[in-house]
């Protein structure tokens, strides 16, 4: 499965990001050229674009599916309500719908269990989780405060902030993870199952028992 994404900033221009039809048309051509392919199996919207109507985004993405440039579309780090809105918009207008969601999920990031996962299960979406080691917090080795992610979101790694994974100066999650590291990177224990081409991504196939746990 060849999957890639659009919507994160790809230049200084405000129009080189997001989910506008204008940008999607350009972004997909850029991706096809860089990847040296004439179609993408799964084209995902990297982040919500609150400045663009989701229906407009789905029109542009549906065009790509009909043109054969993209086989399926998905979203990433979407809140549950926006996934629902996108499905309603797609159903109303006869558009292709998001077949997958790619959320962050780990032992320390379980928010999706309350909304995104149940919604995805209801719509028969595939779930491709990222950050199973929480950007390094659970690796037991890395220093997350000096990671690439920390440069993008320094506030997320400031141990002095109340509610952070531990008191200032300590790294208890990494410490705890050291003991857990060899058990699993994933709360469900069902980690690292590769997606077979055309397999679990098929929307007409029910999710396996115990999925989206």
């Amino acid at each position, binding site marked *: 499965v060849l999957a890639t994404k659009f919507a994160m900033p790809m230049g200084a221009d405000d129009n080189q990001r997001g989910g506008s039809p204008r940008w999607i048309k350009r972004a997909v051509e850029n991706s096809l050229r860089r990847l040296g392919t004439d179609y993408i199996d799964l084209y995902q919207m990297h*982040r*919500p674009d*609150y400045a663009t109507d989701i229906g407009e985004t789905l029109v542009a993405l549906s065009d790509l599916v009909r043109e054969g440039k993209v086989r399926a579309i998905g979203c990433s*780090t*979407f*809140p549950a309500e926006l996934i629902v809105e996108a499905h309603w918009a797609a159903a109303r207008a006869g558009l292709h719908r998001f077949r*997958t969601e*790619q959320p*962050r*999920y780990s*032992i*320390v*990031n*379980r*928010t999706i*269990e*309350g909304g995104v996962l149940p919604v995805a299960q209801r719509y028969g979406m*595939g*779930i*491709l*989780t*990222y*950050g*199973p080691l929480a*950007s390094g917090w659970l690796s037991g080795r890395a220093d997350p405060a000096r990671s690439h992610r920390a440069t*993008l*979101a320094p*506030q*997320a*790694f400031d141990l002095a*902030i109340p*509610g*952070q*994974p531990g008191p200032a100066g300590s790294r208890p*999650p990494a410490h*705890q993870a050291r003991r857990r*590291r*060899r*058990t*699993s*990177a*994933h*709360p*469900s*224990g*069902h*980690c*690292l*199952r*590769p*997606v077979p081409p055309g397999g*679990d*991504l098929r929307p007409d196939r029910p*999710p396996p028992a115990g*999925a*989206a*746990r």
Partner: protein
Amino acid sequence: VTSVLIGPRRPEQLDDLLAGADVELSEDVLDRIDEIVPPGTEINPADNYLAAHPALENKHLRRR
């Protein structure tokens, strides 16, 4: 969960992660995890992965 993106940078990281592929956590371990981080919550809400609604970060959007 259909699949997990593991993102290794070095071969030894891949080996380490693949070693966990067939591990099934016991009920006891899962219960313990639930105690540390309750289901549906997370340790650090400030780390929203650049996906928060803009109104959370821009007070003018909240107060208009």
